[in-house]
């Protein structure tokens, strides 16, 4: 008995996911809850579990494909008798989607969706999954309007493009094992493809408009071959030609700007999706929303180096690798308690600044697949050793992508340790909607002038970026001084 498994909603508001890798192959036997695929959304990478015991009949996508939520990704042959509808439905939902799972569990067992035949046909035409449409008709019957609304919301969702066209458009990219596309010509525009015209107004016969809708083409984008009364007039042939040659281009419109020029040697492209795009959007939102000011200073940390050296061996006895980071985190939390404005969030709409009572410190970790920020919760309540152990664990999880979304949420302040790679000062971008971020430069011997003499001292360069709407420059400086004092004289941390 075959059983189709659709890509579940793996997280709130996630409309699509990239299949990073298949963990099973066609013909494999799987048991219920066994992970079958790694799927990357713009939030995280999750493992999608099998809803059934059985064998894998068909994998409908290749690794690298971006799949809209609700598309069938695997067909299973289910062992024995098919479970009844209710258990199937529950099994459909991964743990992440607890809300909808509990909803379907409380509903009665029958899963029939009531809708007239004309509405069912419309749903197929518009590629709407009828069972997922909430009916507004009598007793919850699904109406034509419901289906049209569902189709609209699908296409207006900013991160979601029309599923079929997109798949064909991204396939060439997704198939590249190395995530790179060789290209002497633009990858997004197919041979003979046409650029969207993007008119505001288009004249066309109703049947032509119908055709455009059927083909998933925006009629305003179709290049017109005729004019009537000075307006562009699009014919059915135009639509057909555009749909055939141009759907791929249309699907990629946002990425492929018209008239793009290429360097002589060509170029390679990488996908701007998933974690990469998520980082990009975060950065842009932060930088464009919060006026950043970065305060620089340098802590002399000879004593901290000695202290850490002494404690390192003790920590190693407990299998914990002790770095400087837990000391810095402790010092930062001391500073945040003294200057709570740096542990805050600006809520513009509510006209208020929230001062956080939790001291949850995010630690930016560079991974192969991009920047991730695991969060150590309640740093104020943990010992340096505990913090060290937790940071190590979270960083390892981030690197092997097993970190959960929860473990990356709830931060109130972030530390970024760019100095691990090298360099002294930087201008970190705040992990919005937090209001401050502390960047650590490389710890090294540097000349320090003291009492009229220059000596070589271990120093730690600090770069504190603040949201200047909330935090004044003086506060930033005072906070930095307070933190530096505790890094220079780590005994003070004993008072924390």
């Amino acid at each position, binding site marked *: 008995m075959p059983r189709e498994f659709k890509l579940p909603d793996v997280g709130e508001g996630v409309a699509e996911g990239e299949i990073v890798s298949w963990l099973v192959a066609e013909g494999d036997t799987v048991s219920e809850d066994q992970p079958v695929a790694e799927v990357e959304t713009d939030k995280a990478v999750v493992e999608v579990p099998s809803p059934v015991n059985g064998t894998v009949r068909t994998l409908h996508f290749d690794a690298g494909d971006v799949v809209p939520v609700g598309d069938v990704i695997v067909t299973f042959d289910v062992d024995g008798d098919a479970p009844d509808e*209710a258990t199937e439905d529950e099994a459909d939902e991964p743990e992440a989607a607890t809300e909808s799972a509990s909803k379907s569990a409380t509903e009665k067992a*029958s899963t029939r969706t009531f809708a007239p*035949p004309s509405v*069912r*046909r419309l749903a*197929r035409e518009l*590629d709407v999954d009828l069972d997922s449409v909430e009916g507004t008709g009598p007793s919850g*019957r699904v109406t034509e309007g419901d289906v049209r609304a569902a189709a609209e919301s699908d296409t207006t969702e900013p991160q979601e493009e029309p599923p079929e066209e997109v798949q064909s458009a991204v396939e060439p990219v997704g198939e590249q094992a190395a995530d790179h596309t060789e290209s002497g010509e633009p990858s997004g525009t197919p041979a003979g493809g046409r650029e969207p015209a993007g008119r505001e107004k288009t004249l066309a016969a109703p049947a032509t408009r119908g055709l455009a809708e059927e083909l998933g083409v925006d009629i305003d984008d179709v290049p017109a071959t005729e004019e009537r009364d000075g307006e562009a007039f699009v014919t059915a042939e135009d639509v057909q030609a555009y749909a055939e040659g141009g759907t791929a281009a249309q699907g990629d419109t946002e990425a492929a700007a018209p008239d793009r020029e290429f360097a002589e040697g060509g170029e390679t492209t990488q996908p701007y999706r998933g974690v990469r795009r998520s980082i990009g959007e975060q950065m842009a939102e932060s930088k464009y929303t919060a006026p950043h000011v970065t305060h620089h200073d340098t802590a002399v940390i000879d004593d901290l180096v000695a202290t850490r050296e002494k404690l390192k061996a003790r920590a190693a006895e407990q299998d914990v690798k002790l770095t400087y980071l837990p000391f810095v985190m402790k010092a930062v939390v001391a500073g945040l308690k003294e200057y709570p404005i740096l542990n805050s969030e600006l809520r513009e709409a509510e006209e208020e600044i929230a001062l956080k009572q939790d001291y949850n410190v995010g630690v930016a970790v560079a991974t192969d697949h991009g920047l991730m920020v695991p969060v150590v919760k309640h740093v104020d309540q943990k010992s340096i050793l505990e913090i060290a152990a937790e940071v190590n664990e979270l960083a390892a999880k981030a690197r092997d992508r097993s970190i959960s979304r929860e473990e990356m949420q709830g931060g109130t302040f972030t530390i970024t340790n760019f100095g691990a790679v090298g360099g002294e000062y930087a201008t970190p971008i705040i992990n919005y909607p937090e209001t401050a971020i502390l960047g650590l430069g490389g710890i090294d011997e540097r000349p320090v002038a003291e009492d009229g003499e220059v000596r070589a001292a271990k120093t730690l360069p600090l770069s504190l970026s603040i949201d200047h709407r909330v935090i004044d420059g003086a506060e930033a400086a005072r906070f930095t001084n307070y933190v530096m004092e505790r890094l220079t004289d780590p005994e003070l941390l004993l008072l924390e």
Partner: protein
Amino acid sequence: MVVGDVSTGTDVAVVGGGPGGYVAAIRAAQLGLDATLVEMDAYGGTCLNYGCIPSKAMITATDVAHDAGNAEEMGVYADPDVEFGEMVAWKDGVVDQLTGGVEKLCKANGVNLMEGRAEFAGGDKLRVVHGGEGQGSETIEYEHCIVATGSRPIEVPGFEFDDDPVLDSRQALAMDDLPDSIVVVGAGYIGMEISTVLAKLGVDVTVVEMLDEALAGYPDDLTQPVKQRAESLGIDFEFGLAADHWEAAGDGIVVAAENEDGETREFETEKVLVAVGREPVTDTLNLDAVGLEPNDDGRLDTDEQARTDVENVFAIGDVAPGPMLAHKASKEGEVAAEVAAGEPAALDYQAVPAAVFTDPEIATVGLTEDEASEEGFEPAVGTFPFRASGRALTTGDSEGFVRVVADEDSGFLLGAQIVGPEASELVAELGLAIEMGATLEDVAATIHTHPTLAESTMEAAEHALGHAIHTLNR
């Protein structure tokens, strides 16, 4: 390739010109595809030529005579003379008119008609062998093939249809003269319909059924009025007997049947009709060549687009899974043709109605109360007896009832069962209601013409809601 073998190409090749196949071919042609319909016998298939249509003609003609002769309580005294040969000729005329109409419709829609028996020849090709000696064959190369070969009566060992006194349903509807007596093997809908016709024409009918009930598969309260009426027409029922063999005896024959314990009963009769069911026809198709094989039921498995396991081969009607019903075949034919044309069609119907043209008629659509419970609904049930229907009383036939089944919470209609006059017509409204996702309230609030039998559906819906006017509420 043999001499005289011609090859043609077509977008859609439809194998079988019954109510599934000809509908598929016409729809495909309407959608701009080049459609070729291959039929080896008669356009219209079993339904139009040998099944639904001729049997309904005979049922109606018989009823006219029977009702006229049994209307004393209305003050009508008559003893109609039936010229059986003329009745059969009239029936044949109806069939000719209809099948001719199908052929014309196909041509008018641009369907290429081809006579012969088609089999798969591999590589998206069909070989069509023309009837008769030396007629040769030709090859059709298709983009899509729709298999609509239908079904044929199941033969019971010991009763070969080729033998003179042994009839299948097709032969029973084409007899030249009425026999004095007949044994009908099988009390399914075909056996019951023909038994009723023959009994009304004065034939001594004995029904021999292996199971212990007539019309097995239908709820008891639907079949009971039919069985009682049949008995009052003089039909003898012999249940729990499996027909074993026949032998000549004097002017007629003796049919021997065995019960579970191996005891034999013998029935003297003139003819024997074997109507124990129908089996799908796939053995003429050379399925191997296209890489298909029938499932355990002898059918071709299909998906919700009527596709078989081979991407461009569809199966519809009796060779596809589901009830063997002409209207279900037609719907599948439409869907297969639309899918072949690239349209987003699907077999997404909620319910397939079914009718038995016995006296009284039985019709069902959708779920029974038990089936609704099994599907997880909490069923609300309403009934309306025809004896409370003014119109039923005025027809002189007020046997039976209408029953509706709905979901208690939402009121959505899920099914209906009807036994009684015009049940086959009445069920259409409820089928529409179910497909539309109508509620009990919708049906109850719709004004129905008075005085009609159709009011009964409205009353049944009101009964389910607890406020029927013309019957006591539950």
